[in-house]
């Protein structure tokens, strides 16, 4: 609770400075939030040149809307929300697939394959080679997920955001966030096991 209040105090000071005409304070806001915005943009947008335009657009929108920020969430979360919805707007405009849809048939097929084998991770968990390999495979498998699943996984596991914060950013109900995250993790786990088994053969 105290941390939220402290964040709000420093957020408020920065916002007041920007609204008072101090553009350098906006540079500071960008510095504080660029990490999160970068994570969202990279997970949502594949095309590098589009990322550049979208990232600029996100901060220009932030600057224009700054006087409407109500301090009900952290400033970084609010900027994350602008980033997520700017990317989402871009994807919708380009008519790109936003969510992974796994049919029951596909899921059963994967389960069938997995049921016949023992979990390959169990024996070499301690090996550092295994961890490097796992990390590389995981990177590829995360890239294969849909933009929304990729982003949710990143926000929850890498940025260590709470469900409530993710809810603010995505404007999705908390139940939906939990359900999408669960599906994304299951997809990752199944694909990871399949890939690992293929490579082990």
């Amino acid at each position: 609770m105290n941390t939220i209040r402290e964040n709000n105090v420093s957020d408020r000071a920065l916002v007041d400075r920007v609204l008072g005409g101090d553009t350098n304070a906006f540079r500071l806001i960008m510095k504080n939030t660029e990490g999160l915005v970068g994570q969202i943009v990279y997970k949502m947008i594949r095309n590098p040149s589009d990322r550049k335009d979208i990232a600029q657009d996100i901060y220009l929108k932030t600057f224009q809307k700054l006087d409407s920020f109500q301090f009900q969430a952290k400033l970084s979360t609010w900027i994350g929300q602008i980033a997520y919805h700017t990317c989402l707007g871009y994807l919708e405009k380009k008519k790109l697939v936003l969510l992974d849809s796994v049919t029951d048939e596909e899921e059963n097929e994967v389960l069938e394959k997995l049921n016949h084998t023992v979990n390959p991770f169990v024996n070499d968990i301690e090996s550092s080679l295994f961890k490097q390999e796992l990390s590389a495979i995981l990177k590829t498998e995360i890239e294969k997920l849909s933009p929304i699943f990729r982003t949710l996984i990143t926000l929850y596991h890498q940025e260590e955001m709470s469900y409530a914060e993710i809810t603010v950013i995505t404007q999705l109900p908390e139940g939906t966030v939990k359900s999408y995250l669960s599906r994304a993790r299951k997809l990752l786990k199944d694909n990871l096991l399949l890939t690992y088994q293929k490579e082990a053969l």
Partner: protein
Amino acid sequence: MKNKHLTDEEIQLYALDADACAPALVAHIQHCAHCQQEVLTYQLLAEGIKTQEKAVFDFDLADLVMEQLPQPKPTSDRPILYMIGGIMAVMIVVMGELFGSSFIGLFAYAQPILIGLVLTATIALTAFLGIDMYQKYKAQMKALNYY
């Protein structure tokens, strides 16, 4: 204790936040090698995602954005100050013409200490209101320059 294997959601819940699980689920996992394997896989997965390299912009975003922000225009306050001064001068001349003789009569009869008191209060009040008005004007102009 639950006899059937746990669902995928339950396994994930245990793997990520065991404290949030019901005692029956915890008891099952402690005695079930299959579910323990599943939990381990999800824990590895979570650790693997956490340690992935974070995405960082490969260009200077701050510079790109900052050069597009509207810069505050340099403003000159002189015209507005001249205008206020002019209006005050006109008002003093008009007041002098209309009420000049009455004012002289007023000062002739009033005690010097009373005149001093009235003048000090009037000057202090005018100065305070003038400064306050000027500060408000500056703040509004600054805001207008940005939008």
